[in-house]
């Protein structure tokens, strides 16, 4: 009974749980840096009509552009390397070396090269999440069974049809997984990047509130950025449900051994 209810309203349930823990901490620690969650929520809703929405929109736009660029380039290169071993031999080791480099440290370089505006922030997020997408796609293409390729060839498929009926549908669920990870990363990176040389963006809003010791506003910003992430996650879930029924069935089949 309770299991069913939780399952049905799981997002709402999670929100309630988080607020409960927050409230507990508020009463336990008795410090101004952890305000009452109810007050923070009220501030959030009050600000949502005005400036908060503009900051949120600026951040969302930056994330969406970064994701779009990363998918376009990351998927193309990932497919190319995954399907052509001889090129992967040359580029694979370089990618492996660059992947763990903390690209966030290059923000000053990017700001000098691409200016203080949106471009440097978008490029920073892009060069971080593009690796996650590229590597996931490349490895999932490599992992495809040879039998599937032979089967579709025996049915007379040309190169484009192999992409359309085999490669692209096969990588789609992996792409969604990579996207979820990328969104999480891109939000935290953007938060960092928006602390510098900008007056728009949720990262700026939060740090600005902190400097002004307006903790309620700071928390309103944190709520906003969290909801932004949740919104993008839900959008990815929605797309996956619509386009990858089979993968969800597969996941369900391997679930709960205990």
């Amino acid at each position, binding site marked *: 009974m309770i299991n069913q209810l939780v399952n049905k309203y799981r997002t709402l349930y999670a929100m309630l749980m988080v607020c409960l823990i927050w409230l507990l901490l508020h009463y336990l620690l008795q410090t101004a840096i952890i305000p009452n969650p109810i007050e923070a929520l009220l501030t959030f809703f009050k600000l949502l009509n005005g400036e908060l929405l503009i900051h949120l929109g600026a951040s969302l736009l930056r994330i969406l552009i970064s994701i779009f660029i990363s998918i376009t380039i990351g998927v193309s290169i990932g497919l190319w390397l995954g399907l052509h071993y001889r090129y992967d031999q040359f580029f694979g080791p370089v990618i492996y070396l660059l992947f763990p480099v903390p690209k966030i440290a290059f923000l000053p370089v990017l700001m000098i090269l691409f200016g203080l505006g949106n471009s440097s922030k978008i490029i920073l997020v892009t060069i971080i999440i593009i690796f996650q997408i590229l590597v996931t796609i490349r490895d999932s293409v490599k992992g495809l069974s040879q039998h599937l390729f032979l089967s*579709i060839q025996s049915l007379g498929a040309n190169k484009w049809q192999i992409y359309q*009926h085999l490669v692209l549908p096969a990588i*789609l669920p992996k792409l969604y997984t990579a996207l979820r990870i990328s969104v999480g990363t891109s939000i935290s990176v953007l938060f960092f990047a928006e602390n510098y040389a900008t007056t728009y963006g949720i990262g700026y809003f939060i740090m600005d509130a902190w400097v002004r010791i307006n903790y309620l506003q700071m928390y309103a910003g944190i709520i906003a950025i969290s909801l932004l992430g949740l919104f993008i996650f839900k959008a990815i879930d929605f797309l996956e449900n619509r386009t990858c029924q089979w993968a969800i069935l597969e996941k369900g089949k391997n679930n709960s051994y205990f």
Partner: protein
Amino acid sequence: MIEVQSLSVKYQQNTILNNIDLTLKPKETLAIIGPSGCGKSTLLYCLAGLLKPYQGNIHIKGEIINKPRRQTGVILQEYGLFPWKTVFQNAALGLTLRHEDKSKIKKRVNDVLEQLHIKEQCHRYPIQLSGGQQQRVAIARALATNPDLLLMDEPFSSLDTIVREELQGVILDLYKKRSLSVVFVTHNIEEAVFLGKRIMIMTPKSGRIKSILDNPCFGDHHIRSEIAFHEMCVRVREELEAEQHDQSTC
């Protein structure tokens, strides 16, 4: 139907097939049997046009085989079904790739799904099916394009005996109803004797044909309980084991 002359395949110094000659008449079935690594799957891939660099000649109905042939249906190991396609979409794939019109695809695929008793499952995904059902879909996909030649690579090896024999019966039925030639690879002696009008035994390792037996037991659904069937199985077994014995003595 099939004309193979001095076919050899080498892969990195290793000879996988060595000077194979083979002919198959229309409406005939051929079982290729031999131990693992004898090159039997490679031979099938060559016939399917999936393996290009070979020496010698392969002609099917006068056509040189260097790419997959339109009129050949192929069933590979592990079924080769696409998990993201429903049963219907899987079975229809061959026709879809040929840009046949929708109504024709629908009719042809529904007919063949019905013939294989899998039509009720047509909106489900492969993961929701049993192994035997998946194999039926793979057969449906190969037959939907109306082939005159069916190639199968160890088609029933992962199924339990009851389902395997049931599907062997299905193949025999289809063979009788359609004008179909069948070549299949197996390591199961009973399967070879049940479904192979001729049985080709391959030598281990060296990639040659040991012998080709004519099989009088072929074509009867109820042959499995007859003495003649078991005698034929014993003959094939002796032929296979004799080869292994030769190998170990030299």
